[in-house]
């Protein structure tokens, strides 16, 4: 991707939270997965991050006040877009579970199949999630582009 692309939050502050656009929860006997659709790769990564927050549940509307937002630099490398998405989601999970920081949006200055550089905007999370995601698995992991639409499937271990 040549140009920096900013992914904005899907809603204005104060709006009632609804499931993020383009994200559908997948049935899995033991665990939970998501299927994500987006018009481009940066939107796919953004929506997948919101999808992960949705799976965590609880206070998915994370917002402390707007002025509590901070930016974190994230750089990742991977041998393929699907592995990169998995590693991206692990970063978002770690921030939420361990640092109590909820993802809001990201600005990608590099997003290719080899890696990404992003400025990730987070806010302090309110309360604990309802679910615990132990890991972002490689089982059934897929990222594909078809006629201008990007699609991803990710299964989480709960």
């Amino acid at each position, binding site marked *: 991707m040549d140009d920096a692309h900013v992914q904005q939050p899907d809603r204005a502050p104060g709006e009632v939270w609804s499931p993020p656009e383009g994200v559908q929860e997948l049935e899995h006997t033991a*665990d939970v997965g998501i299927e994500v659709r987006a018009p481009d790769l940066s939107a796919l990564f953004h929506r997948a991050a919101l999808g992960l927050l949705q799976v*965590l549940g609880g206070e998915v509307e994370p917002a402390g006040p707007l002025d509590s937002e901070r930016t974190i630099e994230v750089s990742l490398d991977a041998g393929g877009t699907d592995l990169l998405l998995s590693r991206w989601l692990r970063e978002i999970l770690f921030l939420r*579970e361990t640092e109590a920081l909820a993802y809001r949006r990201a600005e990608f200055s590099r997003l290719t199949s080899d890696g990404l550089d992003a400025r990730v905007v987070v806010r302090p999370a309110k309360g*604990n999630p*309802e679910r*615990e995601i*132990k890991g972002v*698995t*490689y089982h059934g992991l897929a990222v594909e582009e078809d006629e201008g639409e990007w699609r991803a499937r990710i299964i989480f271990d*709960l």
Partner: protein
Amino acid sequence: MDTDTALPRKLEVVQVDASRWLIPRQGAMRVDGLIFADQRMMSDLRGDEAIRQVANVACLPGIVGRSIGMPDIHWGYGFAIGGVAAFDPEAGGVISPGGVGYDINCGVRLLRSDLRESEVRPQLKRLMDQVMRDVPAGVGSHHTRLRLSDGELEAVLMRGAAWAVDRHMGVAEDLDHIESGGCLPGAVPGDVSARARQRGRDQLGTVGSGNHFIEVGFVGEVFDERAASALGLRVGTVTVLIHSGSRGLGHQVCTDFLDLMLDAASRYGIDLPDRQLACAPLTSPEGERYLGAMAAAANFAFANRQVMAHLTREAFARVLGRSWEELGMGLVYDVAHNNAKWEVHSVGGMDRRLCVHRKGATRAFPPGHPELPDVFRDVGQPVLIPGDMGRYSYVLVGTEAAYTETFGSTCHGAGRLMSRTKAKKSVQRAGRDLRREFGERGIEVRAASFATVAEEIPEAYKDVAEVVDVVDRAGIGRKVAKLLPLGVLKG
């Protein structure tokens, strides 16, 4: 390697007897698969990925014997949940973090007591409130008093349950009643990443979330008086079951090593039917590093359950006004159901040192096995099989048949039937008040989040009695006692 080309699209499965189903070696499988199940369980599995996952594991290098599925088997990621596989290092055998799972050394421990159910019932509400106050539960649950320094965390990772006993959280006798004495040898804390330490540092002694719990119950029925007596279990006496694992620390160790193993598998030319089966030869530097980190995380899990048992004993003492020793709250046993261990097993008439992966399966050593303490030498290793929250759980002992047929392994629980989402939606649709439902059945439920309780409703699971009946009938475990719930703390 793509799954569809590695294995036939439609796998051949042959019924052997009322409890056994063979997946004959086909496609890229190196050994047969064997699933323990009755007719109905097998029908339920037909639309599931679990059977194919048993076959996938049979494709891995160095696997010996059979790739095994227990009757509580269900669709996992990589390995099925309820899978057992043994690998020979001298035949290129591998170690796979996905064959252990994210919750390294997750397991169950059982405390007994001399208390009668009738003595505890009038105090049950207070007791469960106290347990909930004293043992943090739920997502992100952590201790404010037990945040470990770097040195203390290092000691936990090296010593497991003994670390807690040294700090007066338990007694030395407890260690004889824990699988592997509560400590896996060969731990290398240096291979546990900074991120893993950060995730786990303040989580020691916490229940966590999902299907983890602390359950106060009582012995409802005894099937084998001699074995029950050796385990200290009498009908009508109160028990405590504790189910948890290595918390965020173990989850992160698995995550860290999956990446390393993906690269390693490619470097060593290992075809993976599923990337979650990423693995490396047991004798490779990558394999050895994972084994060291996994043992460290396993020791964290042993220590975690030891601390929770201590806190629960103290909660009983506070509410009932007698010390836990006076209440007779000895440890019956602590078993793990997510790990990979070095064990000696006979294959083709020869004793071989194998690495046995158990992912959602319990070790079940027979009477006379040298690793068992004297007290269990004649009856076999205790095996703890929790059911869903609300019905019942079982205590079994290991058998000779399990040792010869399943590398000394048996089932680990009820096994999910229904996805979490479906379970939660069914509760919401029916407008059920779960707290009241359990209350009407005399079960006090405490939960950090009732959303978790909705995902863990009894209907979401197989009936554990059916699972246990299959292993009992197949001879890979022997029923000793049934435990009934009085109160449950969920995450």
